[in-house]
């Protein structure tokens, strides 16, 4: 019997020791990231059958198990990947948010400054300092455009660099996961006797990976874990890893795209397929906030420079010459697809801005398939198929300049992206500011009626300067004006008081009661240094809705951009705060099950210590019993 008592006592000692070991392990790992509390699983040994019934044989330590819940853990993972996605998005969006509406560094002060320069010229058209100040303020506006655009490009480059960094981190983590997979398989870990600490390490790696990009995992029967990203691309299979790569996009050289290397070839992973995590945050930010902001900002620059130029060209400078461009004309950018999947045809596409008022803030892709062109507006994926080019889409004229495209060739058209970067003031000479209108009107002194001619508006300079004086003569009998000297010839026009008479790009109107034979003339506006009519029209452009099909002024288009970015930022901030709470809650639930509680461990320490002491006492008694038997024999 005493042998059995010994053996029971020893089993108790061993079990208590195992308990103490595990408790100490728990205590020492209380602050270890990803550590899961372990407990000793012990059972009572099979009993021994005797004539007197079953006698217990002591205790047996079955295994040490992690307090691990697949369900709680995956909840933490999915909350965490979304949280780091939102954190990254917020951090990036805040940069633009701060940039645009700063009262001193945004676009608004420069815009207002420039137009007050224009108004100054309108008030003092012959003043050289006023003209100089308008040019200088124009340059200030342009450099503000460039500075903000440069900052946006910097943010874009920042995204590119971060994407590259994250991709290499993902590759590193993936190879670490595969190493652990091998170790776990080699360690002989089984469902019944798991290699707890190796599993913890692997789970921590998966959690880290998950913060970078959303991954899904599938456990294998041998204990290894397969990891998938994107739309099911395997990243880790057993102890094999596949790698991601980042490279310049073949469609848009300004962006970095992510490729999946399989069998020596690289497949591009679409931005939509890489969701969650920091990578998803960066890509979504680029697509949904940065691109629209840069395009919208470029659109303000495009419309401003183009419409201002158009009005400036309708004017006349101080030397009596028709006005030229005040700003350099912005151009749309076309990129042909390059790289291994690049265009194979010789087609060269051009895009010109036919009507800046109709421009959207979107980029366009043109794909040549089946002998037809498919134009896609990328902001909303509207597809417009065309059998031939040229075509005009949203104010952008797309034409095939030379060559022929091959089937599948693709082009990216960015109508406004680089307008702010490329804006310049082309005028340096103050005399070239076209403040005057190119023609003026007069009623003859000999006129006997009360008829008056309006100052005249110029809508096209195609027929200017006038080859000679244009004379309107009123004939009372027919109530008409005959026109002499107009080239191309015009008129006669029936007289209606106040109604516009338009010809050859000029518009005048008559009022009052002209007498028979009264004459009115339109002449070239020579020596008109004090004429400010064109400057007034230029000044009015500030509030005229010229952007987005005549729905917004420059300032309101910009305000809309600020508001859009603000809304985006606000939205992700709110989501991010909510997501942080969610992470906190899921972590709490997970920790509540798997985390170490020191008080609990302290209690366990006491419990196992007492159990150890008690088992020791059992051994002592067994020994005493044995001595008793020996003394009988003496």
């Amino acid at each position, binding site marked *: 019997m005493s042998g059995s008592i010994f053996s029971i006592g020893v089993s108790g000692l061993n079990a208590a020791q195992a308990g103490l070991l595990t408790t100490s392990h728990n205590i020492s790992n209380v602050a270890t990231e990803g550590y899961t509390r372990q407990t000793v699983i012990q059972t009572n040994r099979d009993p021994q059958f005797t004539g007197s019934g079953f006698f217990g044989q002591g205790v047996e330590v079955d295994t040490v198990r992690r307090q691990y819940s697949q369900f709680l853990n995956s909840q933490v993972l999915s909350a965490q990947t979304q949280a780091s996605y939102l954190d990254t998005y917020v951090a990036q969006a805040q940069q633009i948010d701060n940039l645009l509406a700063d009262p001193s560094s945004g676009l608004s002060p420069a815009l207002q400054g420039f137009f007050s320069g224009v108004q100054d010229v*309108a*008030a003092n058209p012959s003043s050289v300092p006023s003209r100089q100040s308008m040019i200088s303020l124009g340059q200030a506006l342009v450099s503000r455009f460039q500075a903000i655009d440069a900052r946006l490009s910097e943010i874009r480059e920042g995204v590119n660099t971060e994407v590259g960094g994250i991709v290499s981190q993902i590759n590193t983590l993936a190879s670490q996961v595969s190493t652990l997979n091998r170790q776990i398989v080699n360690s002989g870990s089984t469902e019944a006797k798991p290699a707890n600490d190796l599993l913890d390490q692997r789970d921590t790696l998966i959690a880290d990976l998950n913060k970078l990009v959303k991954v899904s995992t599938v456990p294998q029967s041998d204990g290894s874990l397969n990891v998938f990203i994107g739309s099911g691309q395997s990243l880790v299979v057993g102890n094999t890893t596949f790698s991601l790569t980042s490279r310049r996009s073949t469609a848009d050289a300004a962006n970095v795209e992510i490729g999946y290397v399989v069998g020596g070839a690289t497949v591009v992973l679409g931005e939509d397929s890489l969701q969650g995590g920091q990578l998803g945050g960066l890509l979504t930010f680029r697509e949904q906030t940065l691109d629209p902001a840069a395009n919208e900002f470029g659109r303000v620059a495009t419309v401003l420079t183009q419409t201002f130029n158009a009005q400036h060209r309708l004017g006349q400078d101080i030397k009596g010459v028709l006005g030229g461009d005040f700003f350099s004309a912005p151009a749309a950018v076309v990129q042909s697809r390059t790289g291994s999947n690049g265009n194979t045809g010789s087609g060269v596409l051009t895009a010109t801005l036919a009507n800046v008022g109709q421009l959207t803030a979107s980029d366009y892709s043109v794909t040549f398939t089946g002998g037809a062109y498919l134009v896609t507006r990328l902001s909303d994926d509207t597809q417009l198929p065309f059998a031939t080019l040229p075509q005009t889409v949203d104010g952008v004229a797309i034409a095939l300049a030379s060559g022929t495209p091959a089937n599948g060739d693709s082009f990216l058209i960015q109508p406004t992206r680089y307008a702010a970067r490329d804006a310049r003031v082309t005028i340096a000479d103050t005399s070239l500011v076209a403040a005057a209108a190119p023609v003026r009107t007069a009623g003859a002194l000999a006129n006997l009626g009360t008829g008056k001619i309006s100052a005249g508006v110029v809508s096209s300079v195609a027929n200017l300067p006038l080859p000679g004086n244009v004379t309107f003569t009123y004939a009372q009998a027919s109530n008409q004006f005959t026109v002499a000297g107009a080239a191309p010839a015009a008129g006669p026009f029936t007289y209606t008081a106040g109604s516009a008479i338009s010809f050859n790009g000029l518009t005048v109107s008559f009022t009052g009661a002209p007498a028979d034979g009264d004459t009115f003339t339109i002449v070239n506006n020579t*020596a008109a240094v*004090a004429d*400010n*009519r064109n400057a*007034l029209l230029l000044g009015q452009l500030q509030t005229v809705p010229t952007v987005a099909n005549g729905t917004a002024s420059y300032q309101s288009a910009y305000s809309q951009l600020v508001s*859009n970015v*603000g809304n985006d930022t606000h939205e992700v901030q709110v989501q991010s705060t909510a997501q942080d709470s969610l992470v906190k809650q899921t972590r709490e639930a997970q920790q509540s099950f798997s985390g170490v509680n*020191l008080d609990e461990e302290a209690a366990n320490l006491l419990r196992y210590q007492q159990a150890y002491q008690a088992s020791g006492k059992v051994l002592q008694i067994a020994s005493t019993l044995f001595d008793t038997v020996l003394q009988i024999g003496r």
Partner: protein
Amino acid sequence: MRVSTNTIFEQGIFNLQRVQSQLVKAQEQVATGRRALTPADDPVAAARILEVTQSKSINDQYARNADSATASIGLEENALTRYTALLQDIKTLAVGAGDGAQTPTDLKILGTELRGRYAELLGAANSTDGNGLFLFSGYQGTTQPFAESASGTVVYSGDQGQRLVQIGAARQIAVSDAGSDVFQRVRTGNGVFETTANAANVGTGIVGKGVVRDAAAWAAAGNPNNFEVRFSVDSTNVPPRTTYDIVDTVNNLSLTTGAAPAAGPYLRPYQDGATITVARRSPPDTNATAFDYGIDLAVTGAPASGDRFTLAPSTNEDIFATVNQLIQALETSAPGATGNTRLANSLNAAMNSIDNALDVGLSVVASVGARAKEIETSRTNSADLGLQYDTTLSGLRDLDYAKALSEISFNTVALQAAQKTFVQIQGLSLFNFM
């Protein structure tokens, strides 16, 4: 619920950070005085702020424009006041010259004085602003508008443009008037038609400026508008009997007979100062066709046989030509009844034109005054509007300090409490009792 030791830490720190970030934000709001620090804090307000700021800056610009318009229009008003005063002066001189008590020498002296006025008139018409730009040259600010091409002939080199200043979103106000409209577009005669004594007249008939009795009849189609009143004195009669005819000089018809003009005596008897109406008066007219050309005139004095007075539509004559003719009349006046009559007719014509010029001048002054008033009103409006924009901006942008400060003190209390309890809970451990 089982709580892990990590959770106690994490939760404590999470709460501390949350309160701290609220504190930092409130502190930043107080430091900047702005409610929304970035557009994300209030996207709608951020966009509104930008737009209201632009409206405010445009409004300020209109106020500055109004200042500059006031300056320009003030200069024009001065020049015009000087001009109308000069016209009054000239008129007084002309009245003095016609009082009949002046000898040809006196008249020559008056003529010389008028030459001085003439030069002053030219000076007023060529007034410049502070920047050396001519006020009355239209768009051509650096072109001198009025210059003498020959003695007494003034040529206008400006144009008919009006300089405009933007003083409101939809209001451009003219701050100049073309010299041609002020100094040149002056009607002769009574503004509708002009009466002139023939230079060869030898009688003492002085023609009045006439009146328009029926404007529609005068303006009607078929009205030749050009007539001559011809006098004939039948000296065989005792006392001599003076008669007159009205001739349509366009069609060369006697209106009284309806036939080609003949020599006197004529059908209508002349009476000193009586109305000569250009309409059929039958009898004595024998013209079978009724006519009424809508105007009347009167001749005073004793016209001689063969004296003629022409009636023609008014034309535009510049004030310099008028004054020059006045000077010529004074300087070339001859003694005697015929000479006096000619002088009187010339003075009448000149004074009619000067009156008309005064009317034109004063109406421009009135229009300038009205514009000055409008600019002033617009400036007041701008100031009011500016105040409203400030209020709107303040509402959109400014911080409610009371709210922000109470939030800060509330958060401070909350943070202190959180810190204290965190430390207390951390102190609780079973190991303390082992």
